[in-house]
């Protein structure tokens, strides 16, 4: 049997297709992307090596500052809120019997829907002539300019978009935590009740430590997801007004495909890769600890 499992030919046949795809569609393009980031490349002419100029231009690019700020805001906001609200919902749902599946399915629903469609939908809900503001007007209130207000450090449109993202994706975190919670042995809780712990206390002392590995998983998923974030913003604000709601991904798209600055856009892409790797490493280091026996 050992011989069978060490069959070189078989190994090559099994692994080659995936390896080939990965190399051609992912690995080589990444290298190219890094190279382009040192080039002036406008699409219609060949790339020309210009050293660090693209990176130096970044320092002067105000939109990039907005994009970076918004991406980081988004990252932190979604990691925190998804953790808190996801856990809250998971905790509540595991404590009820009737309708658990119904609520669970409703909350999870937007995760499988097209974020393009949902982005457009929310854009209309927050547009001044339709949706929320008209509803508020019926009660004699004047709603804010949801998607156009530009005051404050983190502007209102970003909060709105972050809320919509939370609305769409919190089901994912909730489900992850629920799966982990339902995996915790009942006897642990029974023992704690006998010791006189309240439900809240046992949640803090038993549930939280035991789901810590899952927190790391869910958080890295959230973190990468929020750095990649594109669809909702593209359909709700397109980065406007005046680039104030730009994130790295939309900025990359605008620079690369609207203004044809492939070289500069590649440099943004490199920043994005570095951020993704750094954040994943950070989360896994800080949050993940050894697995407890359950």
């Amino acid at each position, binding site marked *: 049997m050992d011989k069978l499992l060490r069959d070189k030919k078989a190994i090559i046949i099994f692994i080659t297709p995936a390896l080939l795809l990965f190399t051609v569609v992912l690995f080589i393009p990444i290298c190219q992307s890094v190279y382009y980031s040192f080039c002036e490349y406008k699409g219609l002419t060949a790339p020309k090596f210009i050293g660090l100029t693209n990176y130096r231009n970044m320092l002067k690019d105000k939109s990039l500052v907005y994009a970076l700020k918004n991406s980081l805001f988004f990252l932190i906001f979604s990691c925190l809120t998804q953790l808190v609200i996801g856990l809250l919902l998971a905790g509540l749902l595991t404590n009820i019997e009737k309708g658990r599946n119904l609520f669970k399915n409703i909350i999870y629903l937007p995760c499988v829907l097209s974020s393009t469609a949902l982005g457009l939908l929310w854009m209309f809900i927050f547009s001044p002539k339709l949706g929320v503001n008209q509803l508020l007007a019926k009660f004699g209130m004047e709603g804010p300019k949801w998607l156009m207000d530009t005051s404050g450090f983190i502007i209102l449109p970003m909060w709105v978009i972050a809320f919509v993202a939370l609305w769409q994706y919190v089901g994912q975190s909730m489900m992850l935590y629920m799966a982990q919670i339902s995996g915790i042995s009942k006897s642990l809780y029974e023992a704690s009740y006998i010791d006189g712990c309240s439900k809240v206390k046992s949640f803090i002392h038993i549930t939280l430590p035991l789901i810590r590995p899952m927190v790391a998983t869910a958080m890295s998923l959230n973190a990468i997801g929020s750095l990649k974030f594109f669809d909702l913003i593209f359909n709700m604000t397109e980065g406007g007004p005046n680039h104030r709601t730009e994130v790295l991904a939309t900025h990359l798209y605008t620079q690369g495909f609207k203004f044809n600055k492939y070289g500069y856009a590649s440099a943004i*892409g490199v920043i994005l*890769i570095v951020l993704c790797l750094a954040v994943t490493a950070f989360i896994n280091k800080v949050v993940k600890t050894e697995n407890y026996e359950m």
Partner: protein
Amino acid sequence: MKNSKTKSTIIKVMIYVFLTLVAIIYLAPLLWVFMVSFKTNAEIFTSPFALPESFYLDNFIFAWTAGKLGIATLNSFIVCGVTLVLSMLIGSMAAFAIGRLRWKLAGPCMTFFMIGMMIPVHCVMIPLFTRFAKIGLSNSLIGLVLPYLTFSLPVTIFIMTGFFKSMPNELIESACIDGASIYGIFFKIALPLSKTGLFVTGLMTFVANWNELLLAMVLISDDTKKTLPVSLSKFVGPYNTNYSQMFAAIIIAIIPTIIVYCIFSNQIVDGLTAGAVKG
């Protein structure tokens, strides 16, 4: 004792009230867009919240035909279907090699694949786009399948490796004794035993690609080859947007998913979560 019972009932009721509120936040926007999609443009602006005066179906017909959502749906199906089948096959083959076969580089290979999970597609978009344009793969559905497939592989490989690793050794041993080849073991024993894994990975792949906008937008320019999200985002024009048709288009885009979801919701939710738990 009685006291604590009423207390726990009150808490239960509060939980239900809270969850119902949450459910309303989730369902209200969807119901609203459904309602609005039956209205005419004038109705939308004059009374956005009233029930539609009549069921005005032209919006849907228009969005489906002239708005090219019909062909876009078909394209999405083709692209997602092909990607799904290929990623399950190629992914589980690689997973089998990593999880079951014995060779030195299995570990590094796995790491290589796992990096793919962390790389956002945006970073390779420009090289892909210029390369594909040169070899005639831009503006073709195959050109879309390739990156979709590649970006679906890491999750597939990760989950399937888990399944293959947890498979009991005895099964393989006995198959060996029966004289099965390694390929026979893969197709006849390993794959059938990991049906759940295949279902989960398939589902994740399909959902992710069905909703993918950015790559499709960049790579496809031909109207007859656009996928659903791209055709949908095209409905908002800078010169004029026809609101009622836009809403009808949104409904067309999400209704199939909602129907499938309603029928299989439990399997889908559990399946996707199972996938993510392992991932």
